[in-house]
Protein backbone atom coordinates (compact mmCIF):
# COMPACT_ATOMS: atom_id res chain seq x y z
CA UNK A 1 0.00 0.00 0.00
CA UNK A 2 2.70 2.42 0.99
CA UNK A 3 4.76 1.45 -2.01
CA UNK A 4 1.85 2.04 -4.35
CA UNK A 5 1.33 5.38 -2.69
CA UNK A 6 4.79 6.40 -3.81
CA UNK A 7 4.15 5.49 -7.43
CA UNK A 8 0.73 7.07 -7.38
CA UNK A 9 2.25 10.25 -5.96
CA UNK A 10 4.75 10.29 -8.81
CA UNK A 11 2.00 9.87 -11.38
CA UNK A 12 0.04 12.68 -9.73
CA UNK A 13 3.15 14.85 -9.86
CA UNK A 14 3.58 14.08 -13.58
CA UNK A 15 -0.06 14.99 -14.23
CA UNK A 16 0.20 18.26 -12.32
CA UNK A 17 3.53 19.05 -13.97
CA UNK A 18 1.98 18.56 -17.41
CA UNK A 19 -0.84 20.92 -16.50
CA UNK A 20 1.54 23.55 -15.17
CA UNK A 21 3.76 23.20 -18.21
CA UNK A 22 0.92 23.79 -20.67
CA UNK A 23 -0.37 26.64 -18.51
CA UNK A 24 3.08 28.26 -18.45
CA UNK A 25 3.60 27.85 -22.19
CA UNK A 26 0.18 29.37 -22.75
CA UNK A 27 1.04 32.32 -20.48
CA UNK A 28 4.39 32.93 -22.16
CA UNK A 29 2.71 32.75 -25.54
CA UNK A 30 4.49 29.73 -27.00
CA UNK A 31 1.12 28.04 -27.48
CA UNK A 32 -1.18 30.30 -29.47
CA UNK A 33 -4.88 29.79 -30.22
CA UNK A 34 -4.05 27.40 -33.04
CA UNK A 35 -1.69 25.40 -30.86
CA UNK A 36 -4.31 25.22 -28.13
CA UNK A 37 -6.91 23.86 -30.53
CA UNK A 38 -4.43 21.25 -31.69
CA UNK A 39 -3.74 20.26 -28.07
CA UNK A 40 -7.44 20.03 -27.27
CA UNK A 41 -8.09 17.86 -30.33
CA UNK A 42 -5.17 15.65 -29.35
CA UNK A 43 -6.66 15.35 -25.86
CA UNK A 44 -10.08 14.41 -27.19
CA UNK A 45 -8.47 11.88 -29.50
CA UNK A 46 -6.59 10.41 -26.53
CA UNK A 47 -9.87 9.91 -24.66
CA UNK A 48 -11.51 8.29 -27.68
CA UNK A 49 -8.54 6.14 -28.59
CA UNK A 50 -7.79 4.89 -25.08
CA UNK A 51 -11.42 3.84 -24.71
CA UNK A 52 -11.26 2.03 -28.05
CA UNK A 53 -7.97 0.48 -27.02
CA UNK A 54 -9.76 -0.96 -24.00
CA UNK A 55 -12.21 -2.70 -26.33
CA UNK A 56 -9.75 -3.75 -29.04
CA UNK A 57 -6.46 -4.06 -27.22
CA UNK A 58 -7.50 -5.45 -23.87
CA UNK A 59 -10.78 -7.23 -24.54
CA UNK A 60 -9.71 -8.25 -28.06
CA UNK A 61 -13.08 -7.27 -29.56
CA UNK A 62 -12.69 -5.58 -32.90
CA UNK A 63 -15.14 -2.66 -32.85
CA UNK A 64 -15.49 -0.33 -35.82
CA UNK A 65 -18.34 1.72 -34.40
CA UNK A 66 -16.72 3.95 -31.85
CA UNK A 67 -17.85 7.16 -33.53
CA UNK A 68 -21.47 6.18 -32.87
CA UNK A 69 -20.95 6.34 -29.11
CA UNK A 70 -18.98 9.54 -29.51
CA UNK A 71 -21.97 10.98 -31.38
CA UNK A 72 -24.34 10.01 -28.56
CA UNK A 73 -22.12 11.82 -26.05
CA UNK A 74 -21.79 14.86 -28.29
CA UNK A 75 -25.50 15.20 -28.95
CA UNK A 76 -26.52 14.55 -25.32
CA UNK A 77 -24.15 17.16 -24.03
CA UNK A 78 -25.01 19.64 -26.79
CA UNK A 79 -28.74 19.30 -26.15
CA UNK A 80 -28.42 19.56 -22.38
CA UNK A 81 -26.01 22.50 -22.40
CA UNK A 82 -28.13 24.47 -24.86
CA UNK A 83 -30.87 24.38 -22.19
CA UNK A 84 -28.57 24.82 -19.16
CA UNK A 85 -25.50 26.71 -20.43
CA UNK A 86 -23.47 26.42 -17.22
CA UNK A 87 -20.66 24.23 -15.97
CA UNK A 88 -23.28 22.28 -14.02
CA UNK A 89 -25.18 21.79 -17.26
CA UNK A 90 -22.03 20.48 -18.89
CA UNK A 91 -21.60 17.95 -16.09
CA UNK A 92 -25.25 16.88 -16.40
CA UNK A 93 -24.79 16.61 -20.17
CA UNK A 94 -21.68 14.53 -19.64
CA UNK A 95 -23.59 12.24 -17.30
CA UNK A 96 -26.57 11.93 -19.66
CA UNK A 97 -24.16 11.13 -22.49
CA UNK A 98 -22.44 8.45 -20.45
CA UNK A 99 -25.77 6.89 -19.51
CA UNK A 100 -27.18 6.99 -23.05
CA UNK A 101 -24.00 5.66 -24.65
CA UNK A 102 -23.66 2.98 -21.98
CA UNK A 103 -27.25 1.90 -22.42
CA UNK A 104 -27.00 1.79 -26.21
CA UNK A 105 -23.71 -0.11 -25.95
CA UNK A 106 -25.45 -2.61 -23.69
CA UNK A 107 -28.32 -3.04 -26.16
CA UNK A 108 -25.94 -3.31 -29.12
CA UNK A 109 -23.38 -5.36 -27.25
CA UNK A 110 -25.50 -8.16 -25.81
CA UNK A 111 -26.44 -9.63 -29.18
CA UNK A 112 -23.44 -8.56 -31.30
CA UNK A 113 -20.63 -9.52 -28.95
CA UNK A 114 -21.50 -13.14 -29.60
CA UNK A 115 -19.96 -12.59 -33.01
CA UNK A 116 -16.23 -12.53 -33.39
CA UNK A 117 -13.51 -10.93 -35.46
CA UNK A 118 -14.54 -9.27 -38.68
CA UNK A 119 -18.20 -10.04 -38.17
CA UNK A 120 -18.19 -8.07 -34.96
CA UNK A 121 -16.40 -5.23 -36.74
CA UNK A 122 -19.06 -5.08 -39.42
CA UNK A 123 -21.92 -5.38 -36.93
CA UNK A 124 -20.57 -2.55 -34.76
CA UNK A 125 -19.96 -0.46 -37.85
CA UNK A 126 -23.56 -1.08 -38.87
CA UNK A 127 -24.79 -0.11 -35.41
CA UNK A 128 -22.82 3.14 -35.50
CA UNK A 129 -24.21 3.94 -38.94
CA UNK A 130 -27.74 3.29 -37.68
CA UNK A 131 -27.12 5.73 -34.81
CA UNK A 132 -25.82 8.30 -37.28
CA UNK A 133 -28.75 7.89 -39.66
CA UNK A 134 -31.23 8.23 -36.80
CA UNK A 135 -29.51 11.43 -35.64
CA UNK A 136 -29.63 12.59 -39.24
CA UNK A 137 -33.41 12.23 -39.33
CA UNK A 138 -34.57 13.34 -35.90
CA UNK A 139 -36.22 16.73 -35.35
CA UNK A 140 -34.61 17.33 -31.97
CA UNK A 141 -31.10 16.90 -33.40
CA UNK A 142 -31.90 19.27 -36.26
CA UNK A 143 -31.28 16.62 -38.92
CA UNK A 144 -28.37 16.83 -41.33
CA UNK A 145 -27.70 20.50 -40.48
CA UNK A 146 -26.72 19.50 -36.96
CA UNK A 147 -26.52 21.66 -33.86
CA UNK A 148 -24.62 24.91 -33.68
CA UNK A 149 -24.05 27.71 -31.16
CA UNK A 150 -23.38 25.11 -28.50
CA UNK A 151 -22.08 26.97 -25.43
CA UNK A 152 -18.30 26.69 -25.14
CA UNK A 153 -18.00 25.04 -21.76
CA UNK A 154 -14.86 23.05 -22.37
CA UNK A 155 -11.38 24.52 -22.53
CA UNK A 156 -8.00 22.83 -22.58
CA UNK A 157 -8.06 22.53 -18.79
CA UNK A 158 -11.33 20.57 -18.82
CA UNK A 159 -9.99 18.33 -21.54
CA UNK A 160 -6.73 17.82 -19.65
CA UNK A 161 -8.48 16.86 -16.42
CA UNK A 162 -10.83 14.48 -18.22
CA UNK A 163 -7.93 12.88 -20.09
CA UNK A 164 -6.27 12.20 -16.74
CA UNK A 165 -9.47 10.86 -15.15
CA UNK A 166 -10.44 8.59 -18.05
CA UNK A 167 -6.91 7.24 -18.40
CA UNK A 168 -6.88 6.50 -14.66
CA UNK A 169 -10.20 4.68 -14.92
CA UNK A 170 -9.03 2.59 -17.87
CA UNK A 171 -5.61 1.74 -16.45
CA UNK A 172 -7.06 0.82 -13.07
CA UNK A 173 -9.76 -1.26 -14.70
CA UNK A 174 -7.19 -3.14 -16.76
CA UNK A 175 -5.14 -3.88 -13.65
CA UNK A 176 -8.14 -4.97 -11.58
CA UNK A 177 -9.54 -8.47 -11.20
CA UNK A 178 -12.17 -7.68 -13.84
CA UNK A 179 -9.46 -6.35 -16.14
CA UNK A 180 -7.49 -9.57 -15.92
CA UNK A 181 -10.65 -11.51 -16.73
CA UNK A 182 -11.19 -9.24 -19.75
CA UNK A 183 -7.63 -9.87 -20.93
CA UNK A 184 -8.04 -13.62 -20.51
CA UNK A 185 -10.96 -13.42 -22.96
CA UNK A 186 -8.62 -11.74 -25.44
CA UNK A 187 -5.90 -14.37 -25.02
CA UNK A 188 -8.12 -17.41 -25.43
CA UNK A 189 -11.86 -17.30 -25.15
CA UNK A 190 -12.31 -21.04 -24.80
CA UNK A 191 -9.63 -21.40 -22.14
CA UNK A 192 -11.08 -18.46 -20.24
CA UNK A 193 -14.52 -20.03 -20.37
CA UNK A 194 -13.17 -23.34 -19.15
CA UNK A 195 -11.81 -21.79 -15.95
CA UNK A 196 -15.18 -20.31 -15.16
CA UNK A 197 -14.98 -16.80 -16.61
CA UNK A 198 -18.27 -15.55 -17.98
CA UNK A 199 -16.76 -14.34 -21.26
CA UNK A 200 -19.89 -12.58 -22.54
CA UNK A 201 -20.20 -10.62 -19.30
CA UNK A 202 -16.63 -9.37 -19.41
CA UNK A 203 -16.78 -8.52 -23.08
CA UNK A 204 -19.89 -6.46 -22.42
CA UNK A 205 -18.31 -4.73 -19.40
CA UNK A 206 -15.34 -3.65 -21.52
CA UNK A 207 -17.57 -2.61 -24.42
CA UNK A 208 -19.93 -0.55 -22.25
CA UNK A 209 -17.07 1.10 -20.37
CA UNK A 210 -15.37 1.91 -23.67
CA UNK A 211 -18.58 3.40 -25.07
CA UNK A 212 -19.22 5.47 -21.94
CA UNK A 213 -15.73 6.96 -22.10
CA UNK A 214 -16.06 7.60 -25.83
CA UNK A 215 -19.19 9.63 -25.04
CA UNK A 216 -17.05 11.87 -22.81
CA UNK A 217 -14.79 12.52 -25.81
CA UNK A 218 -17.87 13.35 -27.86
CA UNK A 219 -19.19 15.76 -25.23
CA UNK A 220 -15.86 17.60 -25.13
CA UNK A 221 -15.85 17.76 -28.92
CA UNK A 222 -19.34 19.30 -28.94
CA UNK A 223 -18.61 21.86 -26.24
CA UNK A 224 -15.24 22.89 -27.62
CA UNK A 225 -15.88 22.97 -31.38
CA UNK A 226 -19.42 24.31 -30.75
CA UNK A 227 -20.96 22.83 -33.89
CA UNK A 228 -21.74 19.21 -34.58
CA UNK A 229 -23.56 17.42 -37.33
CA UNK A 230 -24.13 13.74 -38.02
CA UNK A 231 -21.52 13.55 -40.77
CA UNK A 232 -18.83 14.28 -38.14
CA UNK A 233 -19.48 10.85 -36.70
CA UNK A 234 -19.39 8.62 -39.76
CA UNK A 235 -17.27 5.62 -40.50
CA UNK A 236 -14.30 7.87 -41.23
CA UNK A 237 -14.29 9.08 -37.64
CA UNK A 238 -14.39 5.52 -36.29
CA UNK A 239 -11.49 4.69 -38.57
CA UNK A 240 -9.55 7.77 -37.49
CA UNK A 241 -9.82 6.63 -33.88
CA UNK A 242 -8.87 3.09 -34.86
CA UNK A 243 -5.79 4.37 -36.69
CA UNK A 244 -4.54 6.07 -33.51
CA UNK A 245 -4.96 2.83 -31.56
CA UNK A 246 -3.24 0.67 -34.16
CA UNK A 247 -0.46 3.14 -34.82
CA UNK A 248 0.41 3.39 -31.14
CA UNK A 249 0.26 -0.34 -30.65
CA UNK A 250 -2.82 -2.38 -29.85
CA UNK A 251 -2.90 -2.93 -26.10
CA UNK A 252 -0.56 -0.09 -25.19
CA UNK A 253 -2.08 2.98 -23.50
CA UNK A 254 1.29 4.75 -23.67
CA UNK A 255 1.34 4.00 -27.39
CA UNK A 256 -2.09 5.57 -27.81
CA UNK A 257 -0.84 8.77 -26.17
CA UNK A 258 2.24 8.83 -28.40
CA UNK A 259 0.27 8.11 -31.57
CA UNK A 260 -2.36 10.75 -30.77
CA UNK A 261 0.42 13.31 -30.35
CA UNK A 262 2.30 12.21 -33.47
CA UNK A 263 -0.83 12.25 -35.65
CA UNK A 264 -2.07 15.51 -34.14
CA UNK A 265 1.25 17.24 -34.80
CA UNK A 266 1.51 15.66 -38.25
CA UNK A 267 -1.94 17.05 -38.98
CA UNK A 268 -0.85 20.49 -37.82
CA UNK A 269 2.34 20.45 -39.89
CA UNK A 270 0.52 19.22 -42.99
CA UNK A 271 -2.23 21.82 -42.60
CA UNK A 272 -0.49 24.06 -45.15
CA UNK A 273 -0.46 21.39 -47.81
CA UNK A 274 -4.20 21.45 -48.55
CA UNK A 275 -5.46 18.37 -50.35
CA UNK A 276 -1.97 16.96 -50.54
CA UNK A 277 -2.14 16.68 -46.75
CA UNK A 278 -4.50 13.70 -46.85
CA UNK A 279 -2.36 12.04 -49.52
CA UNK A 280 0.76 12.34 -47.38
CA UNK A 281 -1.19 11.27 -44.31
CA UNK A 282 -2.40 8.08 -45.97
CA UNK A 283 1.07 7.35 -47.37
CA UNK A 284 2.54 7.73 -43.89
CA UNK A 285 -0.09 5.37 -42.58
CA UNK A 286 0.68 2.69 -45.19
CA UNK A 287 4.44 3.01 -44.72
CA UNK A 288 4.23 2.74 -40.93
CA UNK A 289 2.04 -0.34 -41.21
CA UNK A 290 4.25 -2.01 -43.83
CA UNK A 291 7.47 -1.43 -41.90
CA UNK A 292 6.21 -1.59 -38.31
CA UNK A 293 2.98 -3.62 -38.25
CA UNK A 294 2.84 -3.87 -34.45
CA UNK A 295 2.50 -0.09 -34.14
CA UNK A 296 4.97 2.38 -32.77
CA UNK A 297 5.24 0.87 -29.31
CA UNK A 298 3.76 -2.62 -29.64
CA UNK A 299 2.40 -3.57 -26.23
CA UNK A 300 5.08 -1.69 -24.31
CA UNK A 301 3.86 0.47 -21.40
CA UNK A 302 5.63 3.26 -19.63
CA UNK A 303 5.77 2.35 -15.95
CA UNK A 304 7.13 4.44 -13.10
CA UNK A 305 7.48 1.30 -11.01
CA UNK A 306 9.69 -0.42 -13.55
CA UNK A 307 11.78 2.69 -13.94
CA UNK A 308 12.41 2.71 -10.20
CA UNK A 309 13.09 -1.00 -9.91
CA UNK A 310 15.48 -0.72 -12.81
CA UNK A 311 17.40 2.02 -11.05
CA UNK A 312 17.42 0.07 -7.82
CA UNK A 313 18.73 -3.04 -9.53
CA UNK A 314 21.49 -0.99 -11.06
CA UNK A 315 22.30 0.56 -7.68
CA UNK A 316 22.56 -2.85 -6.02
CA UNK A 317 24.90 -4.23 -8.61
Amino acid sequence: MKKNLKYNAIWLAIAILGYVLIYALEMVGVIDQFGETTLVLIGINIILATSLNLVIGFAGQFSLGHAGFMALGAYSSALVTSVIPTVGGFLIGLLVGILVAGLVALIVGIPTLRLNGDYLAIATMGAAEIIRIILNNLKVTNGPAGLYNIPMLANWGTVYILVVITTLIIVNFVHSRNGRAVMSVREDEIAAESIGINTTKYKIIAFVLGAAIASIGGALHANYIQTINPSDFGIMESINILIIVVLGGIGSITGTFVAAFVLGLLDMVLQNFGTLRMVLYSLALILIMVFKPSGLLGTWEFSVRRLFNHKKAKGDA
Partner: protein
Amino acid sequence: MQTVLQQLVNGLSLGSIYALLALGYTMVYGIIKLINFAHGDIYMLGAFWGYYVINQWHFSFWPALLSAMVFCALAGVVIEYLAYRPLRNSPRIAALITAIGVSFLLENGMSYLFSSNVRNFPQAMAVKSYNFLGVKISNIQILILVVSIVLMILLQLIIRRTKMGKAMRAVSVDPDAAQLIGINIDRTISFTFALGSALAGAAGVLIGLYYNSIDPLMGMTPGIKAFVAAVLGGIGLIPGAALGGFVIGLLETATQALGFSAFKDAVVYVVLIIILLVRPAGILGKNIKEKV
Protein backbone atom coordinates in the same frame (compact mmCIF):
# COMPACT_ATOMS: atom_id res chain seq x y z
CA MET B 1 -48.31 -4.63 -59.30
CA GLN B 2 -46.67 -2.45 -61.92
CA THR B 3 -44.83 -0.40 -59.34
CA VAL B 4 -43.68 -3.58 -57.66
CA LEU B 5 -42.31 -4.87 -60.97
CA GLN B 6 -40.77 -1.50 -61.74
CA GLN B 7 -38.99 -1.44 -58.39
CA LEU B 8 -37.92 -5.01 -58.94
CA VAL B 9 -36.22 -3.99 -62.18
CA ASN B 10 -34.54 -0.99 -60.55
CA GLY B 11 -33.48 -3.09 -57.60
CA LEU B 12 -32.02 -5.79 -59.78
CA SER B 13 -29.89 -3.37 -61.79
CA LEU B 14 -28.56 -1.70 -58.65
CA GLY B 15 -28.15 -5.10 -57.04
CA SER B 16 -26.05 -6.45 -59.88
CA ILE B 17 -23.58 -3.59 -59.36
CA TYR B 18 -23.36 -4.46 -55.68
CA ALA B 19 -23.01 -8.12 -56.61
CA LEU B 20 -20.06 -7.42 -58.93
CA LEU B 21 -18.34 -5.48 -56.16
CA ALA B 22 -19.20 -8.03 -53.49
CA LEU B 23 -17.58 -10.78 -55.57
CA GLY B 24 -14.23 -9.02 -55.31
CA TYR B 25 -14.59 -8.62 -51.56
CA THR B 26 -15.59 -12.19 -51.03
CA MET B 27 -12.77 -13.65 -53.14
CA VAL B 28 -10.08 -11.59 -51.43
CA TYR B 29 -11.55 -12.32 -48.02
CA GLY B 30 -11.81 -15.99 -48.83
CA ILE B 31 -8.18 -16.23 -49.80
CA ILE B 32 -6.28 -13.95 -47.39
CA LYS B 33 -8.95 -13.06 -44.80
CA LEU B 34 -8.58 -9.37 -45.47
CA ILE B 35 -11.41 -6.85 -45.74
CA ASN B 36 -10.02 -5.01 -48.73
CA PHE B 37 -11.31 -1.52 -47.97
CA ALA B 38 -9.66 -0.23 -51.12
CA HIS B 39 -11.97 -2.32 -53.29
CA GLY B 40 -14.61 0.41 -53.52
CA ASP B 41 -11.93 2.79 -54.70
CA ILE B 42 -10.83 0.43 -57.43
CA TYR B 43 -14.41 0.66 -58.64
CA MET B 44 -13.96 4.44 -58.62
CA LEU B 45 -10.74 4.04 -60.64
CA GLY B 46 -12.68 1.96 -63.17
CA ALA B 47 -15.31 4.67 -63.54
CA PHE B 48 -12.62 7.33 -64.01
CA TRP B 49 -10.80 5.21 -66.55
CA GLY B 50 -14.03 4.82 -68.49
CA TYR B 51 -14.62 8.58 -68.29
CA TYR B 52 -11.12 9.27 -69.53
CA VAL B 53 -10.98 6.86 -72.46
CA ILE B 54 -14.46 7.70 -73.71
CA ASN B 55 -13.77 11.45 -73.58
CA GLN B 56 -10.14 11.52 -74.68
CA TRP B 57 -9.69 8.53 -76.92
CA HIS B 58 -13.31 8.33 -78.09
CA PHE B 59 -13.68 4.69 -77.16
CA SER B 60 -17.10 3.20 -77.61
CA PHE B 61 -18.74 1.34 -74.76
CA TRP B 62 -17.31 -2.16 -75.13
CA PRO B 63 -13.63 -1.22 -75.51
CA ALA B 64 -14.05 1.20 -72.61
CA LEU B 65 -15.52 -1.56 -70.44
CA LEU B 66 -12.81 -4.08 -71.33
CA SER B 67 -9.93 -1.62 -70.99
CA ALA B 68 -11.30 -0.51 -67.60
CA MET B 69 -11.34 -4.13 -66.49
CA VAL B 70 -7.72 -4.62 -67.59
CA PHE B 71 -6.63 -1.34 -65.99
CA CYS B 72 -8.33 -2.18 -62.69
CA ALA B 73 -6.91 -5.68 -62.69
CA LEU B 74 -3.43 -4.19 -63.00
CA ALA B 75 -4.18 -1.64 -60.28
CA GLY B 76 -5.39 -4.40 -57.98
CA VAL B 77 -2.27 -6.49 -58.56
CA VAL B 78 0.03 -3.52 -57.96
CA ILE B 79 -1.78 -2.59 -54.75
CA GLU B 80 -1.55 -6.15 -53.52
CA TYR B 81 2.14 -6.35 -54.37
CA LEU B 82 3.14 -3.07 -52.75
CA ALA B 83 0.82 -2.80 -49.78
CA TYR B 84 -0.55 -6.18 -48.77
CA ARG B 85 2.17 -8.65 -49.65
CA PRO B 86 4.73 -7.32 -47.12
CA LEU B 87 2.06 -7.80 -44.44
CA ARG B 88 1.18 -11.38 -45.28
CA ASN B 89 2.45 -12.70 -41.96
CA SER B 90 1.64 -9.77 -39.68
CA PRO B 91 -1.47 -9.43 -37.54
CA ARG B 92 -4.63 -9.11 -39.58
CA ILE B 93 -5.50 -5.77 -38.09
CA ALA B 94 -2.28 -4.29 -39.51
CA ALA B 95 -3.29 -5.43 -42.99
CA LEU B 96 -6.74 -3.98 -42.42
CA ILE B 97 -5.30 -0.59 -41.48
CA THR B 98 -3.09 -0.72 -44.57
CA ALA B 99 -6.17 -1.39 -46.67
CA ILE B 100 -7.83 1.65 -45.13
CA GLY B 101 -4.65 3.61 -45.88
CA VAL B 102 -4.70 2.52 -49.52
CA SER B 103 -8.35 3.51 -49.74
CA PHE B 104 -7.54 6.98 -48.34
CA LEU B 105 -4.62 7.26 -50.71
CA LEU B 106 -6.68 6.46 -53.79
CA GLU B 107 -9.52 8.78 -52.78
CA ASN B 108 -7.31 11.70 -51.86
CA GLY B 109 -4.77 11.08 -54.59
CA MET B 110 -7.53 11.23 -57.19
CA SER B 111 -9.01 14.34 -55.54
CA TYR B 112 -5.58 15.93 -55.58
CA LEU B 113 -4.72 15.06 -59.16
CA PHE B 114 -8.11 15.54 -60.81
CA SER B 115 -9.99 17.74 -58.27
CA SER B 116 -12.89 16.43 -56.27
CA ASN B 117 -15.58 17.86 -58.54
CA VAL B 118 -18.48 15.70 -59.58
CA ARG B 119 -18.39 15.22 -63.34
CA ASN B 120 -20.78 13.90 -65.91
CA PHE B 121 -20.03 10.53 -67.33
CA PRO B 122 -20.09 10.67 -71.14
CA GLN B 123 -23.04 8.91 -72.74
CA ALA B 124 -21.29 6.18 -74.65
CA MET B 125 -24.64 4.76 -75.59
CA ALA B 126 -27.96 6.36 -76.47
CA VAL B 127 -30.53 5.68 -73.75
CA LYS B 128 -33.63 3.93 -74.99
CA SER B 129 -36.57 3.03 -72.83
CA TYR B 130 -38.74 0.05 -73.46
CA ASN B 131 -42.23 -0.33 -72.13
CA PHE B 132 -42.91 -3.83 -71.11
CA LEU B 133 -46.29 -4.55 -69.47
CA GLY B 134 -46.26 -1.00 -68.16
CA VAL B 135 -42.81 -1.41 -66.70
CA LYS B 136 -40.14 0.97 -67.94
CA ILE B 137 -36.82 -0.68 -68.66
CA SER B 138 -33.93 1.23 -70.17
CA ASN B 139 -31.38 -0.45 -72.41
CA ILE B 140 -28.72 0.47 -69.83
CA GLN B 141 -30.53 -1.45 -67.13
CA ILE B 142 -30.71 -4.49 -69.38
CA LEU B 143 -27.03 -4.02 -70.25
CA ILE B 144 -26.04 -3.86 -66.59
CA LEU B 145 -27.99 -6.99 -65.76
CA VAL B 146 -26.71 -8.96 -68.76
CA VAL B 147 -23.07 -7.88 -68.37
CA SER B 148 -23.09 -8.67 -64.66
CA ILE B 149 -24.65 -12.06 -65.11
CA VAL B 150 -22.26 -12.97 -67.93
CA LEU B 151 -19.30 -11.86 -65.82
CA MET B 152 -20.56 -13.88 -62.87
CA ILE B 153 -20.94 -17.00 -64.98
CA LEU B 154 -17.45 -16.47 -66.42
CA LEU B 155 -16.06 -16.07 -62.93
CA GLN B 156 -17.77 -19.23 -61.77
CA LEU B 157 -16.29 -21.08 -64.79
CA ILE B 158 -12.81 -19.76 -64.05
CA ILE B 159 -13.04 -20.84 -60.45
CA ARG B 160 -14.59 -24.24 -61.11
CA ARG B 161 -13.00 -25.30 -64.39
CA THR B 162 -9.49 -23.86 -64.68
CA LYS B 163 -6.29 -24.84 -62.96
CA MET B 164 -5.87 -21.36 -61.51
CA GLY B 165 -9.37 -21.55 -60.09
CA LYS B 166 -8.54 -24.82 -58.46
CA ALA B 167 -5.42 -23.24 -56.97
CA MET B 168 -7.52 -20.37 -55.65
CA ARG B 169 -9.89 -22.76 -53.95
CA ALA B 170 -6.99 -24.72 -52.50
CA VAL B 171 -5.28 -21.62 -51.10
CA SER B 172 -8.49 -20.41 -49.52
CA VAL B 173 -8.97 -23.73 -47.72
CA ASP B 174 -5.42 -24.11 -46.43
CA PRO B 175 -2.54 -21.96 -47.70
CA ASP B 176 0.18 -24.10 -46.11
CA ALA B 177 -1.09 -27.34 -47.54
CA ALA B 178 -1.54 -25.69 -50.92
CA GLN B 179 2.08 -24.60 -50.86
CA LEU B 180 3.18 -28.10 -49.96
CA ILE B 181 1.62 -29.54 -53.08
CA GLY B 182 3.36 -26.96 -55.25
CA ILE B 183 0.88 -24.14 -55.65
CA ASN B 184 2.50 -20.74 -56.01
CA ILE B 185 0.62 -18.80 -53.35
CA ASP B 186 1.81 -15.34 -54.35
CA ARG B 187 0.77 -15.82 -57.94
CA THR B 188 -2.60 -17.23 -56.92
CA ILE B 189 -3.31 -14.27 -54.64
CA SER B 190 -2.26 -11.82 -57.36
CA PHE B 191 -4.62 -13.58 -59.74
CA THR B 192 -7.45 -13.30 -57.21
CA PHE B 193 -6.87 -9.57 -56.85
CA ALA B 194 -6.78 -9.21 -60.63
CA LEU B 195 -10.11 -11.02 -61.04
CA GLY B 196 -11.85 -9.12 -58.24
CA SER B 197 -10.53 -5.76 -59.38
CA ALA B 198 -11.52 -6.41 -63.00
CA LEU B 199 -15.10 -7.01 -61.84
CA ALA B 200 -14.98 -3.80 -59.81
CA GLY B 201 -13.71 -1.94 -62.88
CA ALA B 202 -16.62 -3.23 -64.94
CA ALA B 203 -19.02 -2.18 -62.18
CA GLY B 204 -17.46 1.30 -62.19
CA VAL B 205 -18.04 1.84 -65.91
CA LEU B 206 -21.57 0.45 -65.68
CA ILE B 207 -22.53 2.68 -62.74
CA GLY B 208 -21.05 5.68 -64.56
CA LEU B 209 -23.34 4.96 -67.46
CA TYR B 210 -26.33 4.34 -65.19
CA TYR B 211 -26.06 7.28 -62.77
CA ASN B 212 -24.23 9.63 -65.11
CA SER B 213 -22.03 11.19 -62.46
CA ILE B 214 -18.69 10.20 -60.96
CA ASP B 215 -16.44 11.69 -58.29
CA PRO B 216 -13.33 10.51 -56.38
CA LEU B 217 -15.34 9.60 -53.27
CA MET B 218 -18.00 7.60 -55.11
CA GLY B 219 -16.47 4.28 -54.03
CA MET B 220 -16.86 4.69 -50.29
CA THR B 221 -20.53 3.93 -49.63
CA PRO B 222 -21.03 1.31 -52.37
CA GLY B 223 -17.82 -0.34 -51.19
CA ILE B 224 -19.13 -0.72 -47.66
CA LYS B 225 -22.53 -1.87 -48.87
CA ALA B 226 -20.94 -4.41 -51.16
CA PHE B 227 -18.98 -5.75 -48.23
CA VAL B 228 -22.21 -5.97 -46.26
CA ALA B 229 -23.65 -7.86 -49.24
CA ALA B 230 -20.73 -10.28 -49.17
CA VAL B 231 -21.20 -10.90 -45.44
CA LEU B 232 -24.94 -11.23 -45.90
CA GLY B 233 -24.59 -13.95 -48.51
CA GLY B 234 -21.85 -15.77 -46.64
CA ILE B 235 -18.36 -14.40 -46.97
CA GLY B 236 -15.94 -16.43 -49.05
CA LEU B 237 -18.75 -17.88 -51.16
CA ILE B 238 -19.13 -16.74 -54.76
CA PRO B 239 -22.88 -17.47 -55.09
CA GLY B 240 -23.38 -15.90 -51.66
CA ALA B 241 -21.85 -12.62 -52.78
CA ALA B 242 -24.04 -12.51 -55.88
CA LEU B 243 -27.16 -13.28 -53.84
CA GLY B 244 -26.19 -10.76 -51.16
CA GLY B 245 -25.67 -8.06 -53.77
CA PHE B 246 -29.11 -8.58 -55.25
CA VAL B 247 -30.72 -8.69 -51.80
CA ILE B 248 -29.10 -5.39 -50.80
CA GLY B 249 -30.04 -3.75 -54.11
CA LEU B 250 -33.67 -4.87 -53.79
CA LEU B 251 -33.86 -3.85 -50.13
CA GLU B 252 -32.55 -0.41 -50.92
CA THR B 253 -34.97 0.25 -53.76
CA ALA B 254 -37.85 -1.20 -51.77
CA THR B 255 -37.14 1.13 -48.83
CA GLN B 256 -36.93 4.05 -51.21
CA ALA B 257 -40.15 3.10 -52.94
CA LEU B 258 -41.96 2.90 -49.60
CA GLY B 259 -40.93 6.50 -48.91
CA PHE B 260 -38.16 5.98 -46.39
CA SER B 261 -35.25 7.10 -48.59
CA ALA B 262 -33.55 8.72 -45.61
CA PHE B 263 -33.37 5.38 -43.89
CA LYS B 264 -32.32 3.22 -46.84
CA ASP B 265 -28.79 2.73 -45.49
CA ALA B 266 -30.06 2.07 -41.97
CA VAL B 267 -32.35 -0.70 -43.24
CA VAL B 268 -29.38 -2.37 -44.92
CA TYR B 269 -27.44 -2.39 -41.66
CA VAL B 270 -30.41 -3.56 -39.58
CA VAL B 271 -30.90 -6.51 -41.92
CA LEU B 272 -27.16 -7.21 -41.75
CA ILE B 273 -27.16 -7.29 -37.95
CA ILE B 274 -30.24 -9.51 -37.85
CA ILE B 275 -28.71 -11.94 -40.36
CA LEU B 276 -25.43 -12.01 -38.46
CA LEU B 277 -27.26 -12.83 -35.26
CA VAL B 278 -29.51 -15.50 -36.71
CA ARG B 279 -27.05 -16.99 -39.19
CA PRO B 280 -23.56 -15.69 -38.40
CA ALA B 281 -22.12 -17.46 -41.44
CA GLY B 282 -24.45 -15.64 -43.84
CA ILE B 283 -27.46 -16.81 -45.83
CA LEU B 284 -25.61 -19.51 -47.77
CA GLY B 285 -22.81 -20.11 -45.28
CA LYS B 286 -22.43 -23.32 -43.38
CA ASN B 287 -21.88 -23.19 -39.66
CA ILE B 288 -18.53 -24.69 -38.87
CA LYS B 289 -18.30 -26.21 -35.44
CA GLU B 290 -15.57 -24.75 -33.29
CA LYS B 291 -13.02 -27.31 -32.20
CA VAL B 292 -11.17 -26.92 -28.94
